[in-house]
């Protein structure tokens, strides 16, 4: 299962719900405003720091760059480009977008 979150954890509770229902070892991809969860401050308060210890966490590099947050990524998060996004979707039998 690949979980995809596109909202800031300070705006909606999408990430919170996702983390509550994601099983150990599953993958989480942060895109659009979701990438803010992987930056200092919000990573702690959103539970992302803890989640990175049990999930494979990815963040979309173009969205980090757009927001000026490329250099602020917390540890335990892997950045991917659009081709990597496609690979992740192809690798997992199911994707869930937490809109």
């Amino acid at each position: 299962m690949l979980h995809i979150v596109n909202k800031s954890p300070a705006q909606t509770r999408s990430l919170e719900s996702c983390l509550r229902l994601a099983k150990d070892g599953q993958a989480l991809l942060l895109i659009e405003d979701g990438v803010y969860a992987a930056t200092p401050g919000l990573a702690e308060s959103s539970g992302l720091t803890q989640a990175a210890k049990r999930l494979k966490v990815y963040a979309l590099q173009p969205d980090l760059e757009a927001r000026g947050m490329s250099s602020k990524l917390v540890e335990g998060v892997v950045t991917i480009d659009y081709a990597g996004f496609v690979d992740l979707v192809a690798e997992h039998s199911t994707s869930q977008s937490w809109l």
Partner: protein
Amino acid sequence: MKKFMFVNRRPPYGSIYALESLEVVLITATFDQDVSLVFIDDGVYELVKGQNTKAIGIKNHSPTYRALDGYDVEKLYVERESMQARGLTEADLLVDVEVLSSAEVADLMAEQDVVLTF
């Protein structure tokens, strides 16, 4: 002249709010009103320096904040609590701002004739 405050609380690209706020700020300034902007919650992210939107195909509107003083819009405030909660400091921002406490922001809001939140 009326006192207009624009309250920005959304990140820059996930929705149209940040850009729309800028548009209305510029229009209001054209009518020679007393305009101020305050950035709270995820709105602080609008001012982060180094934004590069090339790969997502959306216009980078962040340089516009630096052009606001050309329209006599010089009152930019950031709520300290929101900035700190996001691990940011003034050095991360692309324009000079005045950093205020929540209580100070509340006082400023109370002085306004018009408050518009985006």
